[in-house]
């Protein structure tokens, strides 16, 4: 992809996650981390060294990991159950359903290296179904932060919130998008740029790409609104309906299959409230080929140029 001209510094959101978690754990002795051997890839080595009694490593056993998280919550702890997103969500989905969602336990599920982050390790390691799987469950707030600032804010919010949360984090570097001191509000989208001809809705590692696409569209005289929609459930229906009514066209961009993710969540609101043309960008119905995460996002039409082209084509369908 073409980087923005001023080449901003990129950050790994895992760093913001562990820094925030360690700071919270220093203040609250009920905060624990539960891992499936993945201390290193979750970057929880520092947490383990500072709070050895509160790092619960169940070994390579994701079903048990989520069940143990629910039990820790029952016993008064605030567990951050952290593991590679594909295995945390796919392997332990029934535990997430029964022990977390249905039992309404105060469990924080943290999916690391989500989406296409594992890139060329292949489709077994891609987590591009997790929005759909977890969004189908009641009682779990699904959040994909866009940068280190939103990650830190979402982690702080999750620790305070009484209930189930799925935090979907990447390891792919992203620039800062939100202002320092940003306060995370679940179910509330943030406008990264206003516009009147089309709205680009994205989250996670796609938000900065959508913003870059809006800059490209601007050079062609197209005014694009950009919404960073970290929360996939509950969705920000007000922001979506306003976008539909005020810009008349919506492009969604996600590091996820186009079946059941952010685009689907937006479309559910659009078709029932303010039907306008939409394009849903994401991974089509296939397992992704070999390539880095950034290569694959470009490959699937989600470079800034690709997103801009989709928006330009969509606008011609406006009534």
């Amino acid at each position: 992809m073409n980087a923005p001209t001023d080449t901003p510094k990129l950050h790994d959101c895992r760093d913001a996650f562990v820094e925030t978690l360690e700071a919270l754990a220093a203040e609250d002795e009920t905060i624990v981390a539960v891992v499936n051997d993945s201390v290193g890839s979750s970057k929880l080595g520092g947490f383990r060294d500072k709070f050895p009694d509160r790092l619960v490593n169940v070994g390579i056993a994701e079903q048990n990991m989520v069940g143990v998280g629910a039990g820790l919550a029952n016993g008064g702890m605030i567990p951050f159950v952290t593991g590679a997103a594909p295995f945390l969500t796919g392997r332990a989905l029934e535990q997430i359903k029964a022990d977390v969602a249905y039992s309404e336990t105060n469990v924080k599920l943290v999916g690391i290296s989500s989406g296409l982050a594992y890139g060329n390790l292949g489709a077994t390691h891609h987590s591009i179904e997790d929005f759909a799987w977890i969004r189908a469950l009641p009682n779990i707030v699904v959040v994909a932060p866009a940068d280190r600032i939103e990650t830190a804010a979402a982690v702080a919010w999750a620790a305070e919130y009484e209930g189930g949360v799925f935090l979907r984090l990447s390891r792919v570097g992203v620039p800062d998008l939100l202002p320092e001191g940003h306060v995370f509000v679940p179910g509330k989208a943030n406008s990264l740029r206003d516009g009147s001809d089309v709205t680009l809705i994205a989250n996670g590692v796609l938000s900065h790409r959508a913003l870059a696409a809006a800059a490209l569209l601007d050079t062609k005289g197209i005014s694009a609104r950009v919404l960073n929609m970290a929360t996939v459930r509950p969705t920000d229906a007000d922001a979506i309906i306003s976008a539909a009514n005020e810009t008349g066209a919506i492009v969604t961009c996600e590091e996820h299959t186009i079946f059941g993710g952010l685009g689907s969540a937006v479309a559910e609101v659009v078709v029932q409230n303010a039907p306008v043309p939409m394009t849903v960008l994401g991974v089509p119905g296939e397992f992704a080929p070999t390539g880095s995460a950034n290569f694959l996002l470009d490959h699937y039409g989600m470079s800034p140029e690709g997103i801009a082209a989709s928006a330009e084509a969509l606008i011609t369908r406006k009534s």
Partner: protein
Amino acid sequence: MKPFTPDELRAKANQIRRRDLQAVFEAGAGHIGGEMSVTDILTALYFNVLRVAPQNPLDPNRDRLVLSKGHTACVLYVTLAERGFIPKEEITTFLQPMSRLNGHPNRTKVPGVETNTGPLGHGLPVAVGMAKAAKISGADWKTYVVTGDGEMQEGSNWEAIMAAAQFGLDNLTLIIDHNRLQQGARLADTNNLAPIAPRLEAFGWEAVEIDGHNMDEILAALSHEGRTPGKPRGIVAHTNKGHGISFMSDNVAWHHKVPNAEQYAQAMAELEEAAQ
């Protein structure tokens, strides 16, 4: 509540069996076989062992009981009602539309239920988390979990068994209701886990085997006196599916079969006779 004596427990268990039988008969559904096999264990727990208070079901220092074999929810409801967690008359709503007493227990609706079970292999991992929470916080409350024996075919249980030993959870007790029958066949003809106790020991647990219908043996096994420090305890409770009702006992047909009027009358008569 003053802990019941073994004689009082035997009488209470008989009463619970009769109420459970009636509820399943009236609802026209239930899992009568596994309910009769686990009744003595649940009765001992709720009327002698567990430090719980119906008036304060979420007391942070309560002992925890997880019924992982959630399909035997009806006998848990009856036991909770007898113990004062829910009104006794509410048992008549079992499985009725909009009743909170559905076929598997729900912690958000029924006080005394700790976690929602139903899919097998869920209760033990959650119980391990509970026991670990008590260890982390230095609390002395205890965790008990009851599974079926067929349920031990679920791999998630063995993940939890490994973790419990690794964590040294001597505040955790697993009671396996070893009635030798699963839904469609005998355990031995399906995926035989027996003998179970040596398997638990091989995974670093302290294992004991008891007659799961003998109150004195149940109480001795559940006691925390004389346990091995640092080891979780596994109790292999040898039971009979359909225990206490002659034509159901150890009969694979009675996993979730419902008695007809004639069978119901005979079953109730046998239980009433045993109560004398």
